[in-house]
């Protein structure tokens, strides 16, 4: 995704898209986010679970150690993320491999 857009740009697009199918808008954004994530085992899990509530940019712009990613995912579980222990392991593996430091 490009750098944040000015409201003016966004506002003009709203009119454009409001005329189209309602289906377009959310999937467009979802697709936009999905394209940002590095492919690999666990990527779908991250797309499915983490993107339930927040932009994937929150992930891709930072680099963290395995311990830090585990802390982050644990906090997200406390904040309601429906992630099982097995899924958490897969997510942390993926994030550490592609967004580690």
């Amino acid at each position, binding site marked *: *995704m490009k750098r*944040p*857009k*000015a*409201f*003016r740009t*966004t*506002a003009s*697009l*709203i009119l*454009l*898209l409001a005329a*189209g*199918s*309602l*289906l*377009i*808008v*959310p*999937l*467009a*954004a*979802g*697709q*936009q986010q999905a394209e940002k994530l590095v492919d690999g085992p666990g990527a*779908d*899990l991250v797309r*499915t*679970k983490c993107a*339930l*509530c*927040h*932009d994937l*940019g*929150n992930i891709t*712009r*930072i*680099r*963290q*150690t395995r*311990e*830090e990613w585990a*802390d*982050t995912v644990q*906090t997200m579980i*406390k*904040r*309601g*993320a*429906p992630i099982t222990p097995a899924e958490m392991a897969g997510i942390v593996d993926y994030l550490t491999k592609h967004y580690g*430091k």
Partner: protein
Amino acid sequence: MERDDAPNEDQQQGQKNIITRRTFIKSAGRLGAILAVGSAAIALDATAQTAQTPASAPSAAPAAPPLPGPIVANAAVIAEKDPVMKVLTERPLTANVTAENLNDAVTPANRLFIRNNLLTPDLQAAGHTLTIKGLVVKQMTLTLDELKSSFPSVTVQGMLECAGSGRTSFSPLPKGTPWSPTGGYGCPRWTGVRLRDILKAAGVKPSAVHVAFFGADFGELPTAPPVARSIPVSKAMEPNTLVAWAINGEPLPKVHGFPLRMMVPGWVGSASTKWLVGIDVLDAPFKGTYMDDSYRVPAYPVAPGERMPKESVSTEAWPVKSVITAPAPNARFKIGDSIAVAGKAWAGDTSIAKVEISLDEGATWKPAALAKPGDKYAWRLFTHTVRPRRQGYMTILARATDSKGNVQPIVSTWNPLGYFWNGIHRVGVSIEKA
């Protein structure tokens, strides 16, 4: 905004699209309603892949139940804002205004930054109540009218600043909202009643230690806990701590907490709970993920990039800080021009003692002129005139000192969650031959 329409459209498509419908309700009903749009070109490309999404998604992404109440779409929030604002994240919605767009002495509501943790609830004033409970003699539930008629109204200009303001100045970049080096703060006038008047009416028991605030916002998942935070009783009793319903004389915009919010000026923004419905007087700080996992800094300095140590403390008042709001970065002047440097300085719970300007990367400093102090938690305006004598690039630095002698650092102490950036602000301009 189109949540009600979503099922109707799907019903026309029939039962075979049940998974599509679920996905649709989840994405269109929730994400769609709140997402600011991306580019139209990407939107059209994405439709081709729509049909593939349900095939891989259903087992991993069960349909979420309906939201507990109506929300305001991001597009509607944005429509009320000044075009100078930039969206940083769409989910949750955050939006920034950089220093050169904060020249107003009083921040207009349409240039106040946005920092949601969850969705923007579409609340109504009618029927809205505030409940005060916990360690009080008399538990109370007040309507907005009762609140306004029971206690004296006060208007206070005060700083509201996200704890992570300026986060992208930290290296390495900590997780969290990517606030630009300037922005993530504003200083409007707030009208409401003093929290202490409410607490006195309820009768705070001697065992009270912290006061927690609860908002009516909710997340996309029913499992999302409320964004609840608490502050010490001493700050709750501070006369500038308000339960507010107006900003610059107008009702709060929905995204800024309509119809009621906390205003704890000078402290991290997360203390100023939006969409306020509950106040709980406690015998200890509130326990919850927004107290325990966020809004904390290490109890001692850690190396950049280190993990949060076990010893950490909750973020409270902002340290001394200043920004140059004029000239704008990369402005062009001529030799001999009179350049009006202007800016704002603020200092959490203390006050501003002086602001200095440097044109030589901090080797020498000259005092800026300070405007008369206003309300205790309002930013202080400063001005300084510069007359450049040679051509080339010139960097203007501003540095504030507070009433306790604390000076802005060159670079703020790194911390794992990227809070309290108050490093010296610099603006570069070009000087051309006359």
